């Protein structure tokens, strides 16, 4: 059995892997790429690959599509907004860590 795999920027997954592991269809993944939500490591490459942390995002997109019955455009929009929230939360976490304890 393969060992554990980190889902972060140091590792890559192929388009097919992302498709299989996220449960999104190829068309849905292409829609996410076309709308700029999902960016391949090299968009000009013949075969796309993605940073492994994008799998987390793609899986979330799949759940949202299923549980809210969203069309591909809505999936892209919701996912883009969620990503922004996650980025902002990460920034807040980072700023909090830098604040001296007495000031938090």
């Amino acid at each position, binding site marked *: 059995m393969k060992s554990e795999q980190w889902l972060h920027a140091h590792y890559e997954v192929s388009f097919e892997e992302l498709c299989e592991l996220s449960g999104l269809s190829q068309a849905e993944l292409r829609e996410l790429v076309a709308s700029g939500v999902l960016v391949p490591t090299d968009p000009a490459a013949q075969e796309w690959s993605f940073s492994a942390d994008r799998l987390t995002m793609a899986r979330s997109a799949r759940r949202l599509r299923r549980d*809210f019955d969203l069309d591909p455009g809505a999936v892209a929009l919701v996912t883009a907004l969620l990503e922004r929230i996650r980025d902002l939360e990460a920034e807040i976490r980072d700023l909090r*860590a830098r604040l001296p304890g007495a000031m938090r």
Partner: protein
Amino acid sequence: MKYKDYYGVMGVDRKASAEEIKQAYRKLARKYHPDVSKEPGAEEKFKEVGEAYETLKDPEKRAAYDQLGSHRPGQDFRPPPGWERHFGSGTFSFEDLDLGDLFAGMGGGMHRDGRAGAGIRMPGQDYEVTAHITLEDAYRGTEVDLELGVPELDENGFVHRVRRAFKARIPKGATDGQRLRLPGRGGKGLNGGRDGDLYLNVALHPHRLFRVSGHDLFLDLPLAPWEAVLGTTVQVPTLAGTVSLKVPPGTHAGQQLRLAGRGLPKPHAGEGDLFAIVQIAVPSVASERERALYQELAEVSTFNPRGHFAQEGAK
């Protein structure tokens, strides 16, 4: 079998129309969906809502559910005679069956993710779980014991939820919010489909001393006023034990003194840094002698910390 009040969970009347049920589901899903909700217990709540909706949105399942009558949630009850006909042939005991699992299996499906028709290759279910570990564990790498309620098929093809214990290794290099995929550690695939994966979400317990951002750590470093002015060498805690840190003369409050490579190890190579954030600590009670020395200092010093304020007024 334990009764579940699906109408109650969805907050709708037993006579609610399909449209009303759908509306109620959308509202609750927006509130509790684990991907969008910050409510405590959202995931559990969403599971309940999802289960209720799966049954009530399907006219056939809803009719079968309605035949059970109305009981108190959690109450043990027996379905009316012949009720099991809804679930195909075969006899089975209702004793340890879960109502939600029973309905999920109705019509030959095993999970709302997909249908397990005869002979169709179906990948196993993915499991997702959060592992709460200490900062020390993240630093060294650790093994965690997890318990998960997972669906399993019995010999009659009915789904049962069973508690399964997992051991999972979290190699060093993890930090808060990072995810690990453990291939093949999820549910078993059917008819030659691949096994599901286990997704592990790492969450760090807050630490008494260190705050974490990515692989960097932040530590408050209180200094006495004279230490900050004169400079000193202090002992600071790190995850690998105490180290000496040189504090240069004239160190300001808020200054970050970097201890390179003393943060969390990164999973591929290298490690984060530890930043000691200087605070000037002042004794709340000063002795007579100390007060006298401060008084003397105040008279001797020409230092004006507010020189950048307006020309006049502020002092």
